[in-house]
């Protein structure tokens, strides 16, 4: 029996990626990294900013993902996100800009703890990408 399942990543503007030969996906879920294999229980979860890894064709693809919702059902993983970029397409200036912007919004008044947590997550993951 094959160990592959379907993956669909959708942007508001378009369908970003659609594949039916995915072996494993590791996503930065809200409460920690989560690996998803075939026959995973149906789940709905949140994503926080971080790196998403997709294993298919014996290769690993990495994406930077900023937010999103994940739904797994009947061996189909759907990820709705407003911002997802392939890691090797990220350039330095974009990373620096985003970090700066995020740091600025961190200083704003009246943000909730949850927002603060998400923003600092974003900064951390961007920094770690920038360092590599």
């Amino acid at each position, binding site marked *: 029996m094959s160990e592959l399942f379907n993956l*669909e990543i*959708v*942007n*508001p*503007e*378009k*369908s970003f990626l659609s594949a039916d030969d995915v072996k494993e996906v590791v996503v930065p*879920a*809200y*409460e920690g990294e*989560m690996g998803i294999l075939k026959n995973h*229980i*149906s*789940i*709905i*979860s*949140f994503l926080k900013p971080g790196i998403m890894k997709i294993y298919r064709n014996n290769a690993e693809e990495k994406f930077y993902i900023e937010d999103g*919702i994940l*739904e797994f*059902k009947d061996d189909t993983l*759907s990820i*709705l996100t*407003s911002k997802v970029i392939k890691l090797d397409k990220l350039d330095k200036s974009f990373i620096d800009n985003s970090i700066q912007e995020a740091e600025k919004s961190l200083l704003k008044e009246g943000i909730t703890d949850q927002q603060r947590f998400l923003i600092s997550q974003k900064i951390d993951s961007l920094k770690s990408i920038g360092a590599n």
Partner: protein
Amino acid sequence: MPSLDDLKKRIVSVKSTQKITKAMKMVAAAKLKRAQDSAEKGRPYSEKMNKIILNLSENISDKENAPKLLTGTGSEKVHLCIILTSDRGLCGGFNSNIIKKAKSFFEKITKEGKTLKIITVGSKGYDQLKRLYKDKIIEKISFKESKNTNYFDAEKVGNMIIELFLKNEFDVCTIFYNKFKNVITQIPQEQQIIPLKSSEPDNSSSESNYEFEPEEDEILGNLLPKNISTQIFKAMLENSASEQGSRMSAMDNATRNAGEMVDKLTIEYNRSRQAAITKELIEIISGAESL
């Protein structure tokens, strides 16, 4: 009876109008292709989002404390209407169809004694509504600068709505836009987004045994504001496709009408030219005879 010169001038002017409408039709056709593509590409996102929210709201354990964006404030006194129109004219009945739909809704609301608040997106809507409903319009937004419909713009509108909602400025929010069916047909739509109305009562709750991480309420609380932006974005995409389609068929009609008019004027021109020649000939002949 217009003189030959007048007719000639009219023919030339109709012809140049025809050229313009033809060019506009071409441009609209090219843009329509793109707008239609992005409307179709954008559909999966909003559909998925809706599905997930439906699943979530069925699974929610504590109905009492469910987020207000889902259940509403409990009353429905103040209605907020978002009217999505285009920024440019010359697109047939596109804008007036939305406005007509919206106006009948406004009348219904006012008759029931409820308070009405309006936000117009797109300058044409504001132009048409300002005469009757000027004091009701609390905000007008226009995205003339942005070339394509993008999610960023929709998010701005969405955040504005949520902010107003959190300030208890309104109870029910409805958006008006044109749904793109095909080039000839666009259907004006009204869609209630706050509180969320599930369009189809889904009875497939038996299969939705989901695991949630974090808790349902928390996910829902975060998802609902996003859904508002998504719904607005969807409406904007549908709208821009409809606008181009409507403009294309309007300009196609205009081009055809101009063609007909040129034909008619040309016949008239030729007839009066012939009449003039005949008249001159008769004059010459009768002049020669009298000699």
